[in-house]
């Protein structure tokens, strides 16, 4: 792909859409609990903060999120 490609409106929309979705995925991963979580954050008037400097790639935990395990 060359820079000229973005001059074509169709390509530009696709690329823009890709970038938006990529950035959303990177900073705000969505999980099945995310919608409820967001709702509760609003309900309890909580402030979301983010941390910088974390590794780009993370290794998957063997603990399922928010599931108590023995």
């Amino acid at each position, binding site marked *: 792909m060359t820079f000229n490609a973005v001059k074509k409106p169709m390509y530009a929309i696709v690329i823009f859409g890709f970038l938006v979705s990529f950035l959303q995925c990177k900073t705000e991963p969505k999980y099945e609990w995310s919608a409820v*979580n967001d709702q*509760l954050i609003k309900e*309890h008037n909580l402030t979301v903060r983010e941390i*910088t400097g974390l590794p780009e790639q993370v*290794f998957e935990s*063997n603990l399922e999120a928010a599931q108590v*395990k023995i």
Partner: protein
Amino acid sequence: MPDVKLGDGATAKLFWGTGTMVAVIQLDSNATIAEETLPADRFLFVLKGSVDQLIDGKMTTLIALDREAPDGTHSGTPKTEFVYLEKGAKSALKAGAQGAKLLEIYSPFRMDYLQKAGITELPAEFADITNPMAANVEANKVYDLYDFHLTELATGAYSRLISGKNTQLSFISMEPNSTFPHHIHPEEQMMFVMRGGCEEILLDGKQKMEVDDVVRIPSNFVHGAEIGDLGCDALDIFWPARPDYLEKEKSRLQALNAIIPAGSMPSLIVDGSKTKPTLTFSEGPKWLNGKVYFSNMYFDQNWTADPKKSSIVELDPTGAYKNISEGKMQTNGLYPYKNGNLIVCDMIGHRIVEMTTKGEVVKVLVDKFDGKGIDGPNDIITDAKGGFYFTDPQFTMEPEKSQPGRAVYYVTPDGKVNRLTEPNEFAMPNGILLSPDGKTLYINNCYDNESWYPVNSEKDNFIWAYDVQEDGSIKNGRAFAKLFLTGNVLDRKGRSTSADGMAIDKQGNLYVSTYYGVQIFNNKGEYVGMINLPSFPVSLCFGGADMKTLFIVSYSKVYKIDTNMEGFVQYL
């Protein structure tokens, strides 16, 4: 979680979050883990038994001790030793003869542990955070977790915080029936329950958590907790470390170090189990004319007293000591009195006497109230007018008591005895103090809500404060300071702190001897910090040339520790 074999005689349960890995390792007797180079920063805690750990090229023993049930001759406070080794450090382990249970926390991960756990799709390496924080411990140094001070993180939640560069361990104790409402933080949290339990609020639901349960709470995940009636002790592992917690710890240490200088630790000056005269259960120390005077009570394991084996001791600050009276009475609390004499609670003799520092009884000050004998006067304090207050928790050998219940009394300067509290209003009134201005009387409650103790009260694990009236009477009783309960007491739903002797400085800070250690509160009743000792402190006093040294008695031992505060004593 399945066991993962780490080597011969070494198995582990492994769990990990996004940036931190935990291994709960069981080592058989004398099991070894060969020398290796650590691939990540590691905390190693000894939870049970002992282990020899290679540190800086030298095998060093780390141990864990459980709290020992106290009896009349001994007690033991717990110990959990740990060391922080950085990535690249050499490590080797050998378990002690009784084996060991270890807690290892790595950040980031150990590839070989994951392989042993059967994980096949592994990256070539694990990246670490790029902006690590300063650790609050030194690498390669052995610490006892109990020497770390409890920091209040929220109302009803106190924690010992241990931070590495990239992860933080919060050994948190949450009070029975406390609630921590919905909240979030950006750090990932793994919560590992170590005692008691809770209902963990996770999103809009709750899940029960008991000992050894673990839960991972992702970044900015809405959670909270409702603590059960035993309270809950847990290890929270945060990745990365929480700077807000470190700020709270900093504030806590600033307040504490204004009283106890940073690095000041108790030093043993007498071990009366090894020197003569033998000390058994030391009590009631007070500073008078350059010496510490205290009672050397004799109890057997079952708390049976014996005045013939008891004495009153004069201790020089250098550690030299001698009996000034022996075999005549089993005394408890002392206080400086008129004419350079001592006022002495003859607990087993059911009286309070004035005594010279040579051990001669000058006169009996109190032996009756309301026409009947007093029972077991325990602790005592004089006021500026020459009157005095004493507690009588009826800790005496006779099954039938003379008075209708445990109580606190005031003796006016002209010798009239008044009972200030209703019988058994306190389950066990013990330590007693006056504020430096004489306007507030403090009384603590030693035992409460115990199946083995005959009286229950509403005083629980508090120090109570009262306004002192002109005639010495008291009013407006209120809970002044809440004393920490140890896990074993919480487990049986007791409210006993073993609060005993107390000391006060000129600014009104209170120092309280308890099972947990010497608990320190400011003049508003707010917790400041704690002095940890190998056995539980029974009583203490200020002394030394500048009155800034705390002398602490604990069974056969006497310790001292430097402070920045000048102690207050009412010398008449």
